[in-house]
């Protein structure tokens, strides 16, 4: 078993202030460094360490002690209470609509949020966002990002559309809509037409005389391909197979 004092000495005075606890996990022989997330920033600065600095420390200790080393980032005290308080307030305000709510800190005063809402509409989304940002401001916090989990308001990105077209071409507007509406319920003809036109003007898409869309060579070159099971080439081969049958 490793001697904690030796490990603390090896960590050094400069970095030990970021480590709350050192522990040896005998079940798998791993040396553990517990670091409070409130002391971690994107870059090293006075009073703050970074993931990179802690990873370098872990690698150095692993070499010194010929042991596996893991850094465990512990959440800020009161994090759960704050998360739960926001969740309860939002649930109270938007009755039965907020299904789950999680936050994380990207720095001391900025949070990332994951929100799951039932029957989300643009109007409801704006109302929740506006109310939630005000709540955060009252707590001297600001928002970095909100992720709407399982949102039916999501629309496909252009790279996603190109990949879809590569796998299923040639397709006309109505057959594209027929498939896309299942995955993106709020999509409409106008939006799709506008996007396809934009891609066509970029020279990545060709609209044939019969109204079918096909990717140009430029369009094909943009879609990532490879040998993975999830590769667009495999998607294309499977789609061709399905059409043949």
């Amino acid at each position, binding site marked *: 078993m490793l001697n904690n004092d030796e490990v603390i000495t090896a960590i050094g005075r400069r970095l030990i202030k970021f480590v709350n606890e050192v522990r040896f996990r005998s079940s798998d022989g791993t040396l553990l460094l517990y670091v409070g997330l409130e002391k971690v920033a994107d870059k090293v600065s006075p009073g703050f360490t970074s993931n990179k600095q802690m990873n370098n420390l872990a690698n150095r200790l692993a070499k010194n002690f010929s042991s596996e080393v893991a850094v465990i980032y512990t959440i800020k005290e009161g994090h759960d209470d704050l998360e739960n308080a926001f969740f309860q307030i939002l649930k109270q305000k938007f009755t039965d609509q907020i299904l789950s709510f999680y936050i994380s800190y*990207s720095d001391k005063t900025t949070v990332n949020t994951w929100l799951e809402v039932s029957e989300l509409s643009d109007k409801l989304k704006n109302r929740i966002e506006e109310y939630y940002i005000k709540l955060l401001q009252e707590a001297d916090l600001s928002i970095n990002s909100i992720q709407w*989990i399982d949102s039916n308001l999501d629309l496909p990105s252009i790279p996603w559309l190109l990949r879809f077209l590569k796998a299923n071409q040639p397709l006309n507007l109505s057959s594209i809509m027929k498939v896309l509406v299942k995955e993106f319920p709020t999509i409409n003809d106008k939006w799709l037409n506008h996007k396809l036109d934009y*891609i066509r003007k970029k020279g990545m898409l060709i609209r044939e005389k019969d109204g079918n869309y096909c990717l140009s060579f430029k369009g094909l070159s943009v879609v*990532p391909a490879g040998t993975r099971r999830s590769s*667009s080439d495999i998607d294309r081969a499977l789609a061709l197979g399905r059409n043949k049958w």
Partner: protein
Amino acid sequence: MKIVGVKLEDWAKDQKEVIEKDAFGRSAFNRYYYAAYLITRHNLGELDSKWKTEKHKSIPNTLVTTVRKPVIKELEKQCKKGTITKSEQSSAMSSLKAATNELSNMLTQAYDLRCIADYEPEISISTKDNILLLKGYKLSTAREWPGKANAYCKTIRKIWGIASLA
């Protein structure tokens, strides 16, 4: 699997004997961890089949390295080709970073608590205001691990989709 954890947590709270409270409580930590781990492994396996067998100890590092790398590269490429804007690229990268970081940190900590629950009986469950704690960590917080894993994985898969990698 979360449902088993919830039942064990309820049983643990109802026990009068400390030893039984401890036994059910640590088993609940174990189930909550496995629920989160299996959700993550399943979702990563959907992105690349080689991740279907990702091990407990390697999964946190995989999340912040190999899961991110192809997406960052692809988003840069798509931005250069003009299929996404600089702002879309930056927003996708920031969301991916937050989700992979959070999931990686959560799984590392959850795995540590699961190891304590399974292999270190000398560290026992304590109770404060009817909340069970293992090494100061609340069991009620552990109950959120599967839901959080699910939310973070959905974000990761969404960004892979935006980059047209899945």
